[in-house]
């Protein structure tokens, strides 16, 4: 069952408007423009669609919240700042089916009464940027975007905006600051962007994959969508498989697929024996082999103590050292922390130092308690998701691989021979 990749995977499908007209003809938009905004909201709510960027917030409620806010102008923003390590799904949609995103944004704008929208795309996606730029021009030329769309009194314009290399800008409020031409540093929530967003005006921010689902829901109805995949978060999901896996890539599957099937049935199985799996990129706590039967939807993964996030499934085999993996992850967070709040800025730096001490046989067991405490402080007090999630992986690793950490510290031994301990 495929929804988003159905068109893309046709051998002759190109990211130009002719292919899009032939395959979709903006039917969803035409239908939406004949519907009342309330009816559109009902369909989206009925569909059960939840945001695919990581937080899993119900899209219908988000749109409704912006719709109800009586403060103008309003804005629609597409978050194309995909940056969670292990995530590369949005890139595929942006490069191969850009028009679907544009169509979805127009539908959203019509619903919440916005006149202006932005696609915030990460700076390193050069190809996707060019593809989108061309697509926006095409859609304008065909009269689906601009003044009086399809002879209605509804007008909407989309601007493409390029990020400049910053992971935290994928966080919605940091993205808004960046989009305003500032440093990308997060804002305190609430107020949520649907009330106070771009230029402090009501703003709907949706992930690329979330938006790509919208035209299909409008065309086939919310009820149709709600019956696909799991009950908690219906539909399909783009799962990104990478790491120690035989066939890395993006797999579109209904959300009731198990992690086991994802790895063994679709991605060719692991390379080597599985040690841990990160189901939602480096921000997610680790899962073990015994968790393989988890259903890959937001709630079920959470029940296992982890999070689905953007669906970046990173498989890690037994030849890897758990200390070394976490050290690499904290290097990343340390580099990407925006520096706005102290828990994140200082906490990650200290956690990284402790891991370095462990790998160099300079730590003692009480340092593990310190790491756990740091995780709790960061989780509770960081301004945004970056700091809150930065130590998830190391915390769960200590809980599940205590012996391996202890071996490094007490016996000064790294059994897989990666760390410099004892050398």
């Amino acid at each position, binding site marked *: 069952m495929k929804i988003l990749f159905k068109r893309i995977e046709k051998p002759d499908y190109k990211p130009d408007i002719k292919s899009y007209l032939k395959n979709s003809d903006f039917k969803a938009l035409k239908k939406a423009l004949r519907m009342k905004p309330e009816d559109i909201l009902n369909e989206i709510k009925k569909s059960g669609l939840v945001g695919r960027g990581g937080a899993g917030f119900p899209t219908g409620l988000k749109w409704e919240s912006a719709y109800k806010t009586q403060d103008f102008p309003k804005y629609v923003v597409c978050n194309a700042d995909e940056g969670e390590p292990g995530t590369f799904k*949005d890139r595929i949609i942006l490069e191969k089916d850009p028009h679907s995103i544009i169509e979805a944004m127009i539908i959203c704008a019509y619903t919440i009464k916005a006149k202006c929208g932005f696609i915030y795309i990460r700076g390193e996606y050069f190809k996707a940027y060019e593809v989108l730029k061309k697509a926006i021009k095409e859609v304008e030329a065909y009269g689906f975007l601009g003044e009086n769309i399809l002879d209605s009194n509804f007008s909407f314009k989309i*601007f493409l905006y390029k990020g400049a290399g910053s992971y935290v800008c994928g966080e919605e409020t940091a993205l808004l600051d960046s*989009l305003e031409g500032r440093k990308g540093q997060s804002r305190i929530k609430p107020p949520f962007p649907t009330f106070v967003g771009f230029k402090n005006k009501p703003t709907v921010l949706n992930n690329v994959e979330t938006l790509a689902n919208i035209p299909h829901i409008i065309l086939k109805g919310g009820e149709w969508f709600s019956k696909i995949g799991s009950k908690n978060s219906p539909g399909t999901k783009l799962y990104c498989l990478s790491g120690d896996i035989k066939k890395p890539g993006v797999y579109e599957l209904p959300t009731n697929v198990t992690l086991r099937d994802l790895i063994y049935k679709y991605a060719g199985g692991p390379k080597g024996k599985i040690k841990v799996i990160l189901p939602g990129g480096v921000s997610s706590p680790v899962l073990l082999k015994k968790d393989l039967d988890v259903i890959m939807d937001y709630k079920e993964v959470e029940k296992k103590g982890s999070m689905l996030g953007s669906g970046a499934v990173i498989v890690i085999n037994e030849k890897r050292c758990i200390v070394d993996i976490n050290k*690499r992850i904290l290097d*990343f967070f340390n580099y990407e922390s925006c520096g706005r709040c102290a828990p994140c800025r200082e906490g990650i730096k200290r956690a990284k130092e402790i891991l370095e001490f462990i790998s160099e046989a300079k730590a003692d067991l009480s340092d593990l308690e310190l790491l756990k405490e740091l995780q709790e402080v960061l989780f509770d007090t960081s301004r945004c998701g970056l700091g809150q999630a930065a130590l998830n992986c190391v915390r769960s690793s200590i809980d599940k691989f205590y012996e391996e950490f202890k071996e490094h510290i007490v016996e000064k031994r790294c059994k897989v021979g990666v760390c410099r301990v004892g050398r």
Partner: protein
Amino acid sequence: MKERESEEYKNRCEEIINFYPDKRQALLPLLHLAQQKFGYIPKEITLYLAEKLQLPKVKAWSTVTFYSMFSLKKQGKYVIRVCNSLSCYLKGAKRIIEIIKEELGIKEGQTTKDKRFTLEVTSCLGLCDISPAMMINEKVYGNLTPQKVRKILLKYKKE
């Protein structure tokens, strides 16, 4: 920075500032343009933009230094971005980075003396399906092996 280049740049600023719904929004696009045109963000340009957009100098300056794609030092003709995030790391990014350093005789963040290559080790580039991966300017290279990297670099060196 040559004076003529600087003039050309300033002539295009107005158009970009007027393009966006909000004036301040133009800052990032203007910095992208400067990076592209000069290979770095000259201090003079930052000050010029602060004045043009009526921003305190510190705000313009801190925006420049916040983003990794803007550099204060002139970059080489070819900017090599090698990913070192987890998926690429698992597939041997560390070795790939060592080889590039050896081949070019520079460290991370440095530019070769002939001003042709800059090496940057970056966060995830969204190329995990073809990891280990790198970009040279806008071109993507994936499934890298030591031999493959040497061959690619040789091609650029000959150009």
